[in-house]
């Protein structure tokens, strides 16, 4: 569960768990987080929490609500955001541990069923003052989700992090634009003439590959036509395509 850490002048005053769908902040005693300071409005702001996401909304306070130094009306809270009200600071910490956060993003698809929802134990009517319209389905609590099979996180090897790919270039060696260079910045770069002969160079974590797309002839790499499947490109390979020679090389 996400939490807020209330502090003033660097002194931690309190830790508040965001256990409710609506957590109100203000000077008046009925607020969930009461801050008895004249710079804070009676009903200053509210945090709406939907499952793992929390949203901060200013309730038309006199002195405004700031997040990371910027004034906000409505804000989707991110881990380590600092909310400022007058001299007070509230640091937002999302629930997930640094490692678990990523895995949780990719839990299997689950269903939220509006029809089968249990009412949250404390239902505050949405604030008349323009509270965010919470979709009805969002009120579901975790236990109404079905088909939860959170992938056993430890069992799977973490997906390979995309390795930093070296920068590669193409240089035209013949034809009207001979000498022209092109950096391969996109995941896909097509070469050739549509309808005649087209090949594509794909940038992948493993490197660069050339694949035949259309045309009767396959591209020729270093004098040999490539097969139907993707062909890995090496530094200073010469590609012949639609009568034009192109050199592939890695940027020094």
């Amino acid at each position, binding site marked *: 569960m996400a939490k807020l850490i209330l502090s003033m002048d660097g002194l931690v005053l309190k830790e508040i768990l965001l256990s409710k769908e609506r957590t109100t902040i203000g000077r008046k005693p009925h607020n969930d987080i009461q801050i008895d300071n004249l710079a804070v409005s009676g009903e200053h702001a509210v945090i709406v929490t939907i499952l793992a996401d929390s949203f901060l909304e200013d309730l038309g306070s006199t002195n405004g609500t700031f997040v990371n130094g910027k004034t906000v009306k409505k804000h*989707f809270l991110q881990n380590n955001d600092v909310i400022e009200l007058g001299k007070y600071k509230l640091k937002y910490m999302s629930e997930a541990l640094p490692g678990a956060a990523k895995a949780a993003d990719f839990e299997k698809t689950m*269903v939220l069923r509006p029809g089968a929802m249990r009412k949250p134990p404390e239902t505050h009517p949405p604030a008349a003052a323009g509270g965010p*319209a*919470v979709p009805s389905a*969002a009120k579901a609590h975790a236990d109404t989700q079905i088909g939860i099979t959170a992938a056993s996180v430890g069992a799977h090897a973490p997906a390979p992090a995309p390795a930093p790919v070296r920068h590669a270039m193409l240089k035209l060696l013949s034809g009207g634009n001979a000498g022209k260079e092109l950096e391969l910045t996109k995941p896909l770069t097509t070469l050739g003439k549509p309808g005649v002969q087209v090949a*594509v160079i794909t940038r992948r974590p493993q490197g660069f590959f050339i694949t035949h797309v259309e045309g009767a002839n396959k591209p020729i790499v270093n004098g040999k036509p490539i097969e139907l499947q993707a062909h890995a490109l090496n530094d200073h390979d010469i590609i012949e395509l639609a009568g034009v020679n192109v050199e592939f090389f890695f940027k020094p």
Partner: protein
Amino acid sequence: MDLSQVLEIASHTDAGMVRSHNEDSIASVADKGLVVLADGMGGYNAGEVASGMATTVLTTELRQLLEDHAPHEVDPQSGQKAALKMLQQQIAKTNTSIYQASQSQRQYAGMGTTLVVALFYDNKVMVAHIGDSRLYRMRGDEFNQVSKDHSLLQEQIDAGMLTKEQAERSSNKNLVTRALGIDPAVEPEIHEYDTRPGDIYLLCSDGLSDMVSDEDIGMTLKALGANLNLAAQQLVQMANDNGGRDNVSVILIRILREYPAGHGLASKILGWFR
């Protein structure tokens, strides 16, 4: 009408880089202009069972119906096209089959599936979907998402709580608000669109749309549109290169030429001269 000469169809499905088995299921009936994609959910292998039932039941039943009924014909009483009624009835039937299986067999309890179905006829496509499996369209240089997810994030975007960019960072991905087979009844969202020769339609599971940006998907279709099989494989490969956290499935359909339905003898004769 045989549509296998009008539609070019290519598809590819893969378990991805993390999951051990593939709970997605895809099917197509080229001559009837029907493609189906389902992304199953539920414990053990129940997800595969649900998505497999969805594609099998729908293709079998619809193929049979399309033998006997023209999808473009309008029912004089309701004023609705036969295609709409067919899709509604068969999706309801499929829902019942999956729901009953999940109720009667313990190991299937709680299983369900998303669904996206496209039925092509008479220069049109009728699209039914449930959950977060999507249909995109490439027309000329424009690449757009056609279906709108039934998901918590989409509801939040609609309610103005999140922008599309913020949604990318949300922790509440993968929460669908509708699914096939989890309740006794389900409401599919069904729309009809005009098609044009040259259009490319993409049906995909969230394993693609969560891992690869719309921009990169569009770019791939633009670059490799001439070779649909390669494009389908490239899309799956891109999802896997980006981590492949989920099963990924794609079906690509290109409209090769016009395919007006014969509305009578005269148009049939005219059709011969096209």
